[in-house]
């Protein structure tokens, strides 16, 4: 029997906190424009270089560096939509990226999994992606399914299989595209068309979007940027994510890292608009710190990066991916993961990013503990409740009930109590931790909850003919991948 997928709960952005003044934002923007015009960004793609050259950018074919004038940046970005829809299987799962809502995403994309049965660490597989899509389908705060781990059992077409596992196991929007051989990108578009039902519907309510990472400092990936051009042509929204690391791939100051990452993202967005004006794009910068002794990747830096990056994105008049999230560097579930994810969750409403949250992963987004997504969801739910709109009705003072009960009695027998006691929704962890007299850890309760969803939640499947079509597309893509590898 199929399960009902609950409606998505979105955070309101009305509690957004502005950490940067307009003057500071303008200074950052000027810095980005200066980098783009004077230093340039490396685009190792003949196709990209041709597009830039055709539109008057300064293109150096030898170094593959493109320098873009401020005028060209402004002209190109004027066609980028401020608002668009990320479609779900049904309209009630559509995400409207308009700056008024923050939708939570799962984290991605890791490579290691704590096995549900053996509890031993192993490489991630497509089966893990499918399972996490079903779990995410059942959790109302998750609006956007990002494959948490890679389908490493599928080689070159792993991203296509991750997309397939998402589309076939959740009714929610799927981040289905990432950097692949550009020859494989059309298969992802075809999968999106099958699920949407038509080319027009895919453009109107695209069931998948893509994320393409830039390469810090100031470079693009050949396959990434050419894949993005395929998606842009098809109207599939693409976020460009810069991941500058302070001290190694970026200056060792937050503003230096942000302006450098911004230049990478903006250069990619400009290319998309020059090639396909109006293509839906969104902006993302994830800043980290080089561990000063090991050189390792540290995401837990005490700086309001999430809030800043959202403001920077919105200053370019495009939606943002990022702004508060539960992702952290902890290697196991404990005090550190709890405090880091809790603090991250608390920043979601004050950052106001359109897609944020990044639930479910530890160890710098590389390691999946099954129960972590339940714990993260619970934390986010607490924050959601803390920021929900308060309704004030004089009748809710319940003076008549207080008068009726009087001093020294209780309210359990009152009809008013029965009518209102359900107004307070307890999260799954807090609800169950209070039941019974066993001493149980939150982690144990979370794992139990995970297993219960895993055993019982079966979202409405796609129609059989669409499933067959997706299988056919995957088989063709696998064949193409074999040809590319040969």
């Amino acid at each position, binding site marked *: 029997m199929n399960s009902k997928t609950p409606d998505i709960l979105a955070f309101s952005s009305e509690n957004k906190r502005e950490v940067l003044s307009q003057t500071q934002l303008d200074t950052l923007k000027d810095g980005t424009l200066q980098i783009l015009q004077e230093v340039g960004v490396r685009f190792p793609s003949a196709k990209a270089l041709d597009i830039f050259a055709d539109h008057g950018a300064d293109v150096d074919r030898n170094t593959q560096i493109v320098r873009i004038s401020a005028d060209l940046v402004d002209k190109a970005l004027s066609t980028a939509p401020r608002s668009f829809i990320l479609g779900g299987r049904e309209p009630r799962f559509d995400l409207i990226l308009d700056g008024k809502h923050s939708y939570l995403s799962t984290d991605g994309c890791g490579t290691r999994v704590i096995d549900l049965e053996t509890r031993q660490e192993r490489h991630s597989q497509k089966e893990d992606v499918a399972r996490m899509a079903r779990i995410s389908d059942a959790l109302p705060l998750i609006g956007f399914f990002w494959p948490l781990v890679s389908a490493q059992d599928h080689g070159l077409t792993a991203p296509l299989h991750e997309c397939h596992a998402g589309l076939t196991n959740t009714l929610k929007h799927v981040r289905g595209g990432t950097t692949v051989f550009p020859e494989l990108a059309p298969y992802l578009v075809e999968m999106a068309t099958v699920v949407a039902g038509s080319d027009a519907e895919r453009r109107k309510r695209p069931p998948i979007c893509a994320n393409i990472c830039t390469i810090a400092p100031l470079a693009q990936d050949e396959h990434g940027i050419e894949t993005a051009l395929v998606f842009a042509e098809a109207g599939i929204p693409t976020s460009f994510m810069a991941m500058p690391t302070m001290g190694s791939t970026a200056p060792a100051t937050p503003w230096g890292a942000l302006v450098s990452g911004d230049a990478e993202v903006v250069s990619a967005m400009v290319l998309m608009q020059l090639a396909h004006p109006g293509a839906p794009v969104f902006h993302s910068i994830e800043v980290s710190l080089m561990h000063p002794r090991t050189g390792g990747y540290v995401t837990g830096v005490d700086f309001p990066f999430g809030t800043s990056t959202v403001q920077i994105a919105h200053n370019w008049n495009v939606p943002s991916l990022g702004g508060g999230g539960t992702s952290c560097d902890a290697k196991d579930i404990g005090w550190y993961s709890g405090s880091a994810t809790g603090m991250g969750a608390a920043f979601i409403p004050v950052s106001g990013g359109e897609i944020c949250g990044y639930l479910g992963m530890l160890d710098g987004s590389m390691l999946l503990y099954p129960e972590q997504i339940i714990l993260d969801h619970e934390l986010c739910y607490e924050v959601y409740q803390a920021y929900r709109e308060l309704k004030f009705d004089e009748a809710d003072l319940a003076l008549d009930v207080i008068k009726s009960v009087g001093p*020294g*009695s*209780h309210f*359990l027998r*009152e009809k008013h109590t*029965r009518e209102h006691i*359900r107004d307070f929704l307890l999260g799954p962890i807090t609800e169950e931790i209070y039941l*019974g007299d066993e001493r149980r850890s939150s982690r144990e309760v979370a794992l139990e909850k995970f297993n219960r969803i895993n055993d019982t939640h079966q979202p409405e499947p796609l129609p059989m003919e669409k499933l067959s079509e997706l299988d056919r597309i995957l088989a063709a893509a696998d064949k193409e991948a074999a040809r590319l590898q040969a």
Partner: protein
Amino acid sequence: MSEELIGKLKQAVIDGEPEDAEIFAKQALDQSVDPLDCINLGLTPGIQEVGELFSKGDYYLPELIIGADAMKAALDILEPALVSGQEREVVGRVVLGTVAGDLHEIGKTLVGTMLTANGFLVTDIGVDQNSEAFVAAIKENKADIVGASALLTTTMLQQKKLIEALESAGIRDSVKVMIGGAPVTDLYAQEIGADGYAEDAISAVDIAYRLMDAPV
């Protein structure tokens, strides 16, 4: 007609409507419906269903309490009408109260409700009850179990005094003692010689079943 009334009594308990339960109980007696049938076929299955709905998570404590209230409202009418020799089946007889010097009621009331919903006959003697009052109620109701609640570190000592009073009255061997309350622990229960300790109203039912040697 009798089946219809018995069904209405059951539903009044499930819906938590004490006033309706009282009206239907009176109508049943007016129409000469066997009061024992009203209890065994109406009220008891009704309160059992309330218990099941609670176990499934559909009902909350307020529904449980009001269901027990509805059952009690009907029983107050029906039980006096039972003919000699008729007696409703119960798992055990329990006297409950909060000890002397302690005015806290809610925990004890919840335990009483849970026990009632699970087939016990509960006599609640209220709050601030000294050991003599407990002993008298135990004798009067032929209680199998006495439950003593204390919410204060200063009043939990009265639970020990109650056990001493039961020994003095020569009835310690005939009644099992359950204690509860926020400051009370299983260890304390063992130290003062109580037979059982329940952390909350739900576990109190398991303890009571165990003390009655009845299957849970």
